[in-house]
């Protein structure tokens, strides 16, 4: 298990580093923040002072070295906008996004498993047709449009929920419903496909013939084997939620990391942008590793511990194993 984890971490670290360097470089290309933060009639002296104070006149490599030095000490610099430490701002915004994404993903997975399994019980049946069309439509709706229409219908016309903010519990409903659509739509199709395959396998017939209840057959035997492909896609979708969050958070005024990123880009708040991207990249990185681990737990065929153990077999042990006919587990 540890060999697997180590190898996985090393191979995912390269994209992580490239992303961080890339954001650093791209952010510098957006122009000098001095023209945005100083009044129009600022003197040349004031501009130079501002640039020097924030270290924007250093060569790029020096700036980058300073930045990475800071990151290692968990010092992400100071926001140009508010003067607060960027790390604190990002950490304050992160839980809001995490809660939103977490609840959305959980709901999407639960609903998709129920609907997908139900549809798979009778391929081409009425449930299957309705659910496959609905899921296709759900996956095709642009989130920003759905958000606006949701605000129009439920917030403005009916007045059931607030248009934006996080003040009341009802304000969670619209953002979650909007974010839910795409992951739900995609997952239903995946779960359905995997379940159709899994339900036609011989072990299902065996489970039925030994008298297992239909619920048990579906939930224990079929679902467990259909879970692996769904898990992979769910991981990609969770990463995609960060993209969706940028749009949905800015429409609903959700104080999350997506809104923070857009605001920092528009205001050239480099320190905050870098910290936000770093945190996002690290959480994607962690998520991917968690998914790989979950995959290994679910599917014995890719369970890495067995492979690793075989590889580490010493010649003596191999000899012993050959003599010992009993297969070792």
């Amino acid at each position, binding site marked *: 298990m540890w060999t697997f984890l180590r190898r996985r971490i090393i191979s995912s670290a390269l994209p992580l580093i490239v992303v961080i360097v890339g954001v650093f470089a791209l*952010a510098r290309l957006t122009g000098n923040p001095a023209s945005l933060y100083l009044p129009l009639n600022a003197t040349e002296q004031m501009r130079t002072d501002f640039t020097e104070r924030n270290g924007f006149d250093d060569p790029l490599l020096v700036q980058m070295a300073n930045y990475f030095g800071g990151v290692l000490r968990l010092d992400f610099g100071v926001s140009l906008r508010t003067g607060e430490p960027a790390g604190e701002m990002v950490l304050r915004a992160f839980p809001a996004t995490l809660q939103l994404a977490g609840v959305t993903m959980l709901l999407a997975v639960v609903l998709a498993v129920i609907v997908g399994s139900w549809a798979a019980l009778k391929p081409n049946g009425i449930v299957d047709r309705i659910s496959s069309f609905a899921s296709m439509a759900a996956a095709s*709706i642009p989130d920003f449009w759905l958000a606006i229409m949701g605000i129009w219908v439920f917030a*403005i016309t009916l007045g059931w929920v607030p248009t934006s903010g996080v003040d009341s519990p009802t304000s969670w409903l619209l953002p979650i419903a909007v974010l839910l659509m795409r992951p739900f739509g995609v997952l239903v199709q995946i779960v359905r496909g995997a379940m159709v395959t899994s339900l036609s396998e011989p072990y299902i017939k065996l489970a039925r013939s030994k008298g297992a209840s239909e619920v048990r057959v579906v939930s224990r035997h079929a679902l467990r084997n259909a879970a692996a492909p769904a898990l992979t896609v769910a991981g990609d979708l969770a990463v995609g939620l960060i993209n969706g969050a940028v749009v949905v958070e*800015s429409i609903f005024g959700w104080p999350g990391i997506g809104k923070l990123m857009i605001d920092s880009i528009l205001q050239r708040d480099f320190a905050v942008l870098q910290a936000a991207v770093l945190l996002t990249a690290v959480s994607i990185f962690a998520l991917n590793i968690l998914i790989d681990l979950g995959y290994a737990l679910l599917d014995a065929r890719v369970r890495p511990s067995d492979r690793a153990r075989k590889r580490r077999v010493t010649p003596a042990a191999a000899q012993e194993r050959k003599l010992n006919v009993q297969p070792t587990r």
Partner: protein
Amino acid sequence: MSSPLVNPQLPPGGRSVAPPSTEVIALPRSLAATKPGLFHLLLKDRFATAAAVVLLLVGLTALLGPTLMGDLATKQNLSATNQPPFSLAEGWQFILGSDSLGRSMLARLVVATQTTLSVALPAVGISLVIGSLWGVWAGFHRGWRETVSMRIADVIMSFPSLLLAVVVLYVFSPSAANIVLILALTRIPIYLRTARAESAELQSRTFVDAARTFGTKPSAIIRRHVIPVVLPTLLTLATLEFCYVMLAESSLSFLGIGIQPPDVSWGLMVAQGRQYLQTAWWLSLFPGLAIVITTVAANVLAAWLRIATDPAQRWRLTLKHKRKRFIARMPVKEDGR
């Protein structure tokens, strides 16, 4: 594929084959006699036909619409501002209502169709060509070429693509050409991965080995033996990607870093209608509906294409509607449980 019953490539003389033994998978006579072309297969599927027609209409609108509409999309009629839709009081051009400057929604939608497609299609085309060729090349040669290509794909994929687009478009001015480039760049890995996987599998097949034995150059093997096999998969993928790219362009335009006014795209129209939501809902509703309809149509067509271009599954489409159920794997109730 030993049974002639499930072979879509049945020769014209297929009728002389022994009669089907199982009634359930018997093909209709007329179909078994001829080799069904793709177009005929399409007409057999109502949903896929409808989807194709919708896409065709959207394409025609983009191609001819702006000329037909003339300057209607920009002409302001201040006596007819924020006209609600479905009323012919102000003339046919206001059938879908008008915006706050009294411009016809219908005309603006038609012009926006052209803008939206002229971003989405080139972006899909560029990433399809580059990603596929690169992937096929990497998968065919294996070794370091494959490893390096896959790492590059990983790097691009692990970047939140919308964020990348936001940053890049903010740095360089948000013009249509830049949007096409950034969308193409972020979607190349999708084709790269698929093409590599397929081509890596193909290059170990016997027919490729045979070509190699005869001394065919790798470039010729890729062109004549690998690409024709991989192409259907990639084209299906491209249909799906078209939806993604269109949605991405709309999102960017919505955030204000995509298509810039006075140009108009569907996503931008939704964004512009947002501030009139309380008084003029149609400004946001219709362009969004246009996006949804086009995307769903492309999705349906892609789902059909996936089956139709797969020789192992194509026979499913030639069956009569009611019989599909029996052929689909895993009947629960029919199983005689």
